[in-house]
């Protein structure tokens, strides 16, 4: 089967990318989604907090997804559900399995990767101890509670203070579960401040920073955990151990972009983000393969996902039409002081419109300036009252500014007054 654009993944990224590609003139657009419904992670996020920027109102996850799904239904975009992509090569050949047709291969002019991310597990952070049931990643617990109406456990210890973990701490409390506390190895919360306030403080759940779990007990079901304080090098401090009886351990210890297919297609990866290296139109190192959403880097807000996905959709449509123009030399984006990563990592085209850069800092700092320079000259500055690793910083670079940029673009976060 030959098509113009295949979108892999029907979460917010895939939906927005498909829509924008279609609106930009792409003819045959197909969304392949392995689940039985569209929306990605959103159907299980029944709290509100979605769409503040895109729609100017606070929606729940399912509501946010529904807005896009309704738009999709009005178009000629085809959607294949229960369809899992099992292979992708650099020629944009997509192999998909579904219960109706079996194994189908599609040849696309452009592919948009929107596979989202998965949660880091207990083993990946090497928590010692026994291996009973009752250890869940926050997203799995969320699925049980919100989708199946089942409570995974009653007495909960949360490790990690990522957003999903915070939201689930509140959810357990609402369901009558007892959340003993949230333990975070870093000296600060991992999730958005708004979630720390609304999910922990409002419910009287203590947050213990610079703490971790050093042992898990229980032969069948979890019986308890030992927590301990850690030093600056994250080593447990002897003598600070405390045993907490519980039946459930909830992990919110990070998300990993889901890039198995990207690797199969030999796409170049960014080791810091865990996602593909992309240019300003979200095109990866393999021509014609684009990527957006959590598969590129983990986003805090769905609105940013949708916006970046629109860029990818447009880029893919232009690629199909063959209207892409390239610079002679690629501009590479460099990360400087207090910058953990910047996306996009390269600029390949001539500026046609503004580019939004997403960056994450390494450390919390107050009263800073993001300074962007090229060949020794500052091309843009943006003041921020506070920057924190959990909250992505966005910098919009105007088309006019970009015209003067060559070879390199440096991002530094500098404290004001320095």
């Amino acid at each position, binding site marked *: 089967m030959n098509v113009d654009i295949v979108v892999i993944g029907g979460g917010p990224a895939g939906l927005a990318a498909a829509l924008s590609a279609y609106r930009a003139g792409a003819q045959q657009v197909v969304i392949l989604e392995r689940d039985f419904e569209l929306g990605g992670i959103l159907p299980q996020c029944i709290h509100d907090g979605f769409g503040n920027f895109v729609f100017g109102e606070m929606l729940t996850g399912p509501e946010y997804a529904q807005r896009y799904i309704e738009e999709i239904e009005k178009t000629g975009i085809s959607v294949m559900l229960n369809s899992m992509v099992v292979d992708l090569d650099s020629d944009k050949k997509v192999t998909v399995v579904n219960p109706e047709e079996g194994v189908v291969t599609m040849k696309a002019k452009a592919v948009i990767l929107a596979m989202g991310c998965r949660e880091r597990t207990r083993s990946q952070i090497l928590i010692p101890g026994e291996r009973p*049931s009752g250890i869940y990643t926050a997203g799995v617990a969320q699925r049980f509670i919100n989708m199946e109406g089942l409570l995974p456990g*009653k007495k909960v210890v949360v490790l990690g203070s990522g957003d999903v973990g915070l939201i689930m701490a509140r959810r357990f409390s609402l369901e009558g579960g007892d959340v003993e506390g949230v333990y975070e190895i870093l000296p600060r919360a991992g999730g958005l401040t708004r979630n720390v306030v609304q999910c922990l403080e409002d419910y009287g759940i203590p947050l213990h920073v610079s703490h971790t779990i050093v042992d898990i007990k229980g032969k069948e*079901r979890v019986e308890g955990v030992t927590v301990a304080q850690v030093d600056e090098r994250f080593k447990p401090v002897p003598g600070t151990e405390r045993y907490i009886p519980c039946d459930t351990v909830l992990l919110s210890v990070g998300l990993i972009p889901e890039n198995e297919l990207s690797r199969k297609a030999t796409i170049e990866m960014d080791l810091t983000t865990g996602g593909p290296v992309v240019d300003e139109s979200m095109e990866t190192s393999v021509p014609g393969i684009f990527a957006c959403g959590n598969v590129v880097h983990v986003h805090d807000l769905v609105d940013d996902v949708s916006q970046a996905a629109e860029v990818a959709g447009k880029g893919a449509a232009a690629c199909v039409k063959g209207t892409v123009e390239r610079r002679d030399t690629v501009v590479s984006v460099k990360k400087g002081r207090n910058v953990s990563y910047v996306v996009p990592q390269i600029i390949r085209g001539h500026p046609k419109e503004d580019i939004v850069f997403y960056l994450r800092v390494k450390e919390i700092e107050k009263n800073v300036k993001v300074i962007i320079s090229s060949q020794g000259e500052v091309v843009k500055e943006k003041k921020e009252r506070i920057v924190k690793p959990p909250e992505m910083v966005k910098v919009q670079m105007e088309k006019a500014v970009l015209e003067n940029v060559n070879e390199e673009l440096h991002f530094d976060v500098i404290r004001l007054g320095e």
Partner: protein
Amino acid sequence: MTTNEKIKKKLEKFLEKKNLSSIKVSVEDRIVTIAGLADTWDDVVQIGHYAGSLKGVRGIVNNTKSRDITERKDEAQSFFRDSGIRMKLPGKTDVVIIGAGVIGCFVARELSRYNLDVVVVEKESDVACGATKANNGQIHTGVGEKSGTLKKELCAEAWPLYQKIAEDLDVPYEKNGLLILLTEESLPQWVPSFLSRIILTYIVPYFVAHRGKSVGDTPRVVNRKELLQMEPHITKRAVKAILMPGYGVTCPYKITIALAENAVENGVTFVLDTEVLDIMVENDAVRKVATSRGDISCRTVINAAGVYADVIAGMAGAREYTIHPRKGSILLFDKTEGYLTHQVSELRFPQDPHTKGGGVLETVDGNMLWGPTAVEVSDREDTSVSKSELETMVEKYHPAVPEFPLNSVITYFAGVRAATYTEDFVIGPSRVRGFIHAAGIQSPGLTAAPVIAKRVVDILRKSGVPLKEKEGFNPVRKAPPVFKELSAEEKTELIKKNSRYGHIVCRCEQVTEAEIVNAIHGSIPAVTMDAVKRRTRAGMGRCQGGFCGPRVAEILSREQGLPLERVTKKGGGSYIVASKTKVVS
């Protein structure tokens, strides 16, 4: 002085030196019984080992307690679990096999060749739940075992059988060979470097190769250049290696499940979720086995109860050894597919006599595996992995493949070796007629299993059990289809027949709903999440069931007609969810 007296004297002298004269020793029929109180568990193990090393000793029953361990499950106790399987318990049979690990299952399948009624009783809800599910899966040649041990003898006899076994049972087996690495660190620091070079280039390789030949292998010394071509990822510190081509690797739980299925097809009955609580003996002969589900009359009992073998033997009044559990932890990484083409083990002197095995290898599924450790534990069911073990494994095995990314760990687990103090297998009849030991089956027990089974059959034959070959015995078992391994055409064809093959449930390992349903309805039904995992790999990939866990639980609940609250990870109280939510959203 008789042998018994000599043994007693020596041991008493040892205890005196250790200031442990309060510990009592008796020796009967060259079986030593030790009782009393020591300070630490390490002391208990040390005393046992010393006794086990004495000449002429047949077995060590070490009832010594220690002050640091207050609780030790030595006596029978109830583990009764109810996972919802209803297996009928026959009231009468010819042979009861206790334990459905690789040993119990091999014996069962071997006995299914004959016209005998055989029942396997297992306390867990699945086969392969003990040491059998948590080991390296290496098919050793016996090269590392001490000469004169049963371990070495049986291992050497067993490894050449695996090709055929794997074909018959349709299980993975790869004879990929072991590279024993000699590196700059193989000898202790104090050996002068000129001497070290001579020893490493001329003496050790030929010594090791000689040992390899003695177990029927065809070893070859490989020089550094060739070695680094063969295995580009191994350490550049290597100076030479000895290739042992006889070494192989299999999947220990898959082979056990296959054996059990084949045994069932040939008429053996398995009763899972059923614990043996007592054995009734009359006139020094076995009469009956009492289980948590009722009694089974029988004349022959085969004790293949792993770490509980001494407890079971005690029930029959045939406690001729004590098991001191030795835990081994294993570290497993994401798939690497061909990072290594052989198993690799770095030789270091002095060697730890209890962990010669192990090293670095790729499992039959393509995951990198490091391990195991060796830690004496007092708790037979201690399968925890401690921080120090995690560190030890990295320290011990990373140097062999120094560039391997540590952050690709996907899981770690531990198994417990059923070691006796004589540190050898105990296979044979006992003082109770009809009660047969297949005990002390530590490493390389997986390898030796087929030969252990044959020995057990020989013992039965010698003891007068009539063994008439069964007509229509079928040694061949077919594994159910593995979707991921099929061609696109085959996949489509399967999906056309059964659309559940088109529904991929575990995305990391690409396991379909149909495969999970097959496992649940297999002849040894998978009734828990872990049982499904062992049969299908659903949940064994890099996300460790994060995505498919809830879905597998739903399928288990649906297929068994059980509410989700009763689905468990591994039976007993290992439930997945506690209750329904207050407000169903």
